[in-house]
């Protein structure tokens, strides 16, 4: 089981909860499950999101393994200069 937290901006798309508990072993699997359960997340994913596992930020890589008990945080994609 992993704990999924997210920026407030995603709350409406994720059913209004502050956090979720889910089963997933990679970020790619997590995103697939999230979209299946919460279709409105697809819009945010299309816009670009970043995922952090226990604070380590993955902007692009979706094949990272998630250990049981980890916190995954979802936030918008950023741009630099």
């Amino acid at each position: 089981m992993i704990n999924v937290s997210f920026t407030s901006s995603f709350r409406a798309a994720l059913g209004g909860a502050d956090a979720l508990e889910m089963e997933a072993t990679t970020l790619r699997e997590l995103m697939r499950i999230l979209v299946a359960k919460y279709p409105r997340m697809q819009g945010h994913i299309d816009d670009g999101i970043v995922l952090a596992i226990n604070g380590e930020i993955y902007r692009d890589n979706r094949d990272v393994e998630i250990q049981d008990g980890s916190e995954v945080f979802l936030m918008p994609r950023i741009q630099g200069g």
Partner: protein
Amino acid sequence: MANDPSYTKQKLKVIGSRVRRPDGVDKVTGRAKYGADHNAPGQLVGLFLRSPHAHARIKKISTARAEKLSGVKAIITSEDLPDLTKGDTAARDILENCMARGRALYDGHAVAAVAAVDEQTARKALKLIKVTYELLPHVTDVDEALKPDAPVIHDYLYTNGVEPRPTKPSNLYNVAEFGHGDVDAGFAQADVVVEKSYKTEQVHQGYIEPHACVGSVNPDGTGELWVTTQGHFTYRSVCANLLGMDIAKLKVTSSEIGGGFGGKTHVWIEPVVLALSRKANRPVKAVMSREEVFRASGPASSTSIDVKIGAKKDGTITAAFAALRYQSGPFPGAIPGMPWAAIGAMTSFACYNLANVKTLGYDVVVNRPKVAAYRAPSAPMIAFAVESTMDMVAKELGIEPLDLRIKNAAREGTRACYGPVYGPIGIGATLQAVKNHPHMRARLKKNQGRGMACGFWFNFGGQTCADLNIATDGSVTLTVGTIDVGGSRASLSLIAAEELGIPYKQVKAHIGDTGSLGHNDTTEGSRGTFSSGMAIVFAARQAIEVLRERAAIMWEIPIEDIIWKDGHAKARGSKYSRLKPLSLADIAAQSPSTGGPIAGHNESVPDNAGVSFASHICDVEVDPETGGTRIIRYTVIQDAGKAIHPTYVEGQMQGGAAQGIGWALNEEYIYGDDGRLQNPGFLDYRIPVCSDLPFIDTQILEIPNPNHPYGVRGVGETSIVPPLAAIGNAISNAVGVRMDHTPMSPPRILKALEQLHAS
């Protein structure tokens, strides 16, 4: 091991040395080729006709007279650029920004372009194009644009991020919220609550080299673009998509870059130049004038910000809140769903360990040029507001501002204001370094004051692809696809030398064109040395495996018995004592007969670039009669993870501070009531020059990033974040006025002093 990004803690031999920069001689002798230095046989001159109005309907464009002018080879309007974006709103906005489609949305918006045999003819042609405008109401101020009676710029923009979805369009196109805890409860616990509102005016990156390119499209549908850019692969994709070309059939070659700082992450004239070339069937060259750069490239947002911070008597911050209103020009931010105010909101309180924090980002469209990234985009403005308010809180509590920051500094395990939990970070170390720095103990004179402030930037990695080729004499060529904006060719050469165990001078790095490598993301987000450096590490490790294989062939022994150490293949074990180590050059010389060229290659998407923090100290002297402010001493302290080339890192730290000083004191887009930019030139828009600045001292801290073999973090952007606030705090300590509006120019300081004396 080969592609393991983990920090190795290895003892470094070459990295960290201050070797001579590989591009230095070319740049100081004028040999370096910048965007405007490229020419193609038979090229035409491209010029743009731009709207003189802030907002106008284009009723008619008559090009007939211009087309008849001898020497004119092509004229482009939006009718020549059909919308091929297939519902991609971000791409559609780029297309519309490159060439107005039915409406001019800001002063300087391109409405037509001409390609002619020479500049004189092209200028004549521009004068012969007749545009009939119907003026529309305009709005250029971010707060004015949010008023109920403001002209609504787009009837299709409905606010994202609010529930329920609005039923009317408005200029507010996005609301984003970040934070955690309960700020209301936090403020209720506070002994002191300070609230303050701020404004920051629009600034430009001020790169010395204007946008320039040569485009050439052949009748067979292939094309080439030579351009100054921070991301030639991105330019290729965007231009090809807008023009309906296959991406692979457009080759983009980047020039040396005379500054970008985010402004060259976006296309401006390039798709139109290619379209002109396609229509004229000749190469076309265009170079923006400085006036065009100001009016029609991408400055940073102007903003309006509210900050509220509550703290207990002992200095513990109990709650923090910020509302950020950023304008993005006439189009939503560069990344859908991640507009400029949202980025600012994410960075707002990132330096601090807060139980209760909430930030709201309001993104707004106005009739100004499309906003682009500017070095740690969106962060300096909110840092000005937050760090100024932090000093006010400290004053209310009777605590030293530095001690307030140290007490509340984020640390490993802190939940950042934008969500995730931090790993090892350097904000505490930079603050402690401030406390210990002799600058903090230097004496000040009358009308002088000292301020300090902190700053944060995310940093990121992104798609990267690199080649490492070993010539038969043992020299090494690196081909990378991340544009060198701040010294990455030197840094990457150092990294290759370190991994291979050879001298720096044996390595030469090049920026490859888009035909020579896979996609590389734009050099932004302080990613160049982090991500390409990682790719070079992996490519070098791959090449070392090949070198061991070749040594095994030469010695006729198993590869398992060969190690690579200090630039040599060495056979392990006493049974090989007769075998003298083979240098890289020895093995390379035999490569034709041992399997052919020796190379390493890597394509990857490095992540975990490691967040970055900086703390700045600034001394100013304010002339109470003129309101003029002089920077008399400035110190930048920043966590670099590991400084690959310390001189370049110091240069980045100094450059960011210098730009921040200009932003703080002088730079400002000034619009008239007519919505036209009043100061599109370096005489009236004044960036700091050497004589305005003291030598900027630097102190590099090295808190290793655990997710890079050498501990590297991005360093290029963070240093522009603290200066606005550090200077504002210094001015406050010098003459007693709290400045809440940048630039803190002489008229604004005089006005604040008059108000202070009147009260």
